[in-house]
């Protein structure tokens, strides 16, 4: 079953005479029950994409189908009803500052005409679900970022949506709080079967909870697929850049003046074999380990390493050939300035 289908979506913004192409012919399919990540650098068009899914942004061209319905064919009133079936959370939480937590959650129910008493009951249930029922009478200004996002999630879920859109929902939170919010989103996805779309610029968010991912670069969809596949074998430059982290982590590496760098990814079975030791023993060529990490992707342990190879081109080719023979993924790492 398909939850969201985006077909040839193009979005232009006209400001002061010139046109900004925020999205260029993007097509995507999001399956029901998925946790779908959309990742890209700042300004890539992620927010525009997610805002198109509930038609907060009307496409310049192309179509959006939600649960099979072409949003472009809906009247304003029908569109509003559809929106109440698509929950959304934001980087800045966007809670109503002058309403307490309970009334914030009631708000989405008030809007679709639920009776006050019923709304309150439902809101309390949801506050329990997101584990913040003890703050029902508090005001947003009295909450931490993580708590605010929990309230925002409860508010988004109050109307029983089938889809939850998260626009940089963890970008304003520290790593620990991020982990707990992602855990909550995962739980919601599993318990309630809600399709989740996560917009982020952090690869770690994608590898932590997403099943599928789309990479957006400069308004274009450059790569899409299962997270594991893209992590193992990134094809686009944008994917590599996002996987290899920010420029800062590369700065000290430059001093090492390696001839060439490669990124290797160990799959589960090879993670237990001493591939690198075997390689060095066999070829008698030294390699430098510049970075090593293990990640949990889709419940599987995956190892990632960045190696510095010697200057000699022949030796480099030998190493890469040997590594590929063992079945692990090898990606060339370009110099990131």
């Amino acid at each position: 079953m398909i939850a969201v289908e985006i077909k040839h979506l193009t979005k232009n913004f006209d400001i002061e005479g010139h046109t900004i192409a925020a999205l260029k012919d993007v097509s995507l399919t999001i399956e029901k029950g998925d946790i779908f990540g959309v990742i890209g650098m700042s300004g890539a068009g992620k927010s525009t994409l997610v805002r198109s899914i509930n038609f907060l942004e009307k496409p310049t061209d192309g179509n959006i189908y939600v649960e099979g319905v072409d949003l472009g064919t809906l009247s304003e009133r029908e569109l509003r009803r559809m929106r109440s079936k698509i929950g959304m959370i934001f980087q800045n939480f966007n809670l109503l500052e002058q309403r307490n937590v309970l009334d914030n959650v009631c708000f989405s129910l008030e809007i679709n005409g639920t009776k006050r008493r019923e709304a309150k009951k439902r809101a309390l249930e949801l506050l329990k679900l997101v584990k913040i029922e003890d703050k029902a009478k508090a005001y947003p200004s009295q909450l931490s970022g993580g708590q605010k996002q929990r309230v925002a999630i409860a508010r988004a879920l109050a109307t029983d949506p089938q889809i939850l859109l998260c626009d940089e929902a963890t970008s304003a939170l520290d790593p620990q709080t991020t982990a707990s919010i992602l855990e909550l989103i995962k739980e919601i996805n599993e318990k309630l079967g809600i399709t989740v779309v996560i917009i982020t610029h952090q690869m770690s968010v994608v590898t932590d909870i997403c099943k599928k991912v789309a990479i957006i670069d400069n308004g274009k969809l450059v790569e899409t697929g299962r997270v594991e596949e893209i992590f193992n074998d990134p094809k686009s430059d944008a994917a590599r850049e996002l996987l290899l982290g920010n420029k800062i982590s590369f700065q000290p590496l430059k001093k090492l003046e390696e001839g060439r760098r490669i990124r290797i990814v160990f799959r589960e079975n090879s993670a237990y074999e001493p591939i690198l030791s075997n390689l060095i023993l066999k070829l008698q060529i030294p390699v430098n380990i510049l970075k090593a990490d293990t990640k949990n992707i889709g419940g599987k342990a995956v190892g990632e390493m960045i190696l510095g190879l010697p200057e000699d081109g022949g030796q480099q080719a030998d190493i890469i050939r040997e590594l590929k023979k063992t079945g692990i993924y090898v990606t060339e790492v370009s110099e990131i300035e």
Partner: protein
Amino acid sequence: MNEKVIWMLVEGIGETLYMTLGSVIIGYVIGLPLGILLYVSGKNGLRPCGLLYRILDFICNIIRSIPFLILLILLIPFTRLLVGQSYGSTATIVPLVVCAAPYIARVVESSLTDVDAGVIEAAKAMGASNLQIVFKVLLVEAKTSLLTGFTITTGLLLGYSAMSGTVGGGGLGDIAVRYGYYRWQTGIMIVTVILLIVIFQIIQTVGMKLSKKLDHRKR
């Protein structure tokens, strides 16, 4: 000070409050919807409409650029038509309202503009209609700043109502002019000025306290 003077001052206070509150209330009845309309039709509003915005904007600016005393005189025929006479406190309310409404509209517009765009976006994402956004989001989230605007406007109208006393508008301003200016009874004039200051302070203090008390943003 004899009993007659005291009685006159009490009456003056009553008239001043009547003019101030009357014009503020009627001013808001006209200015609040006007301010909402300005916000909604504005460039970043809920439903931008350049033509409507420019018309409202033009009217507001024209009226606001006319000095109050001149407005007072200009409006005499209109006031007479509406109230039957052009002097006295009820008649003064007419020019006060005409002066206040566009001012209030601007104050309201600016309060609504200050509401976080993210919150409005969230409401839209939940399927709220524009009407729901105005009444459940904008007016509620902006209530502190609206109340501050209300307080400032009331203070302003208190001053204007006193000014209208110079042309027979009634109230404390009228007394100050009649006794202080025409009859050289400086004592009475000073008392009316002090009374005006006290009323002004009370309005300011109560308004600001209330708006702070109702604000849930910081604590």
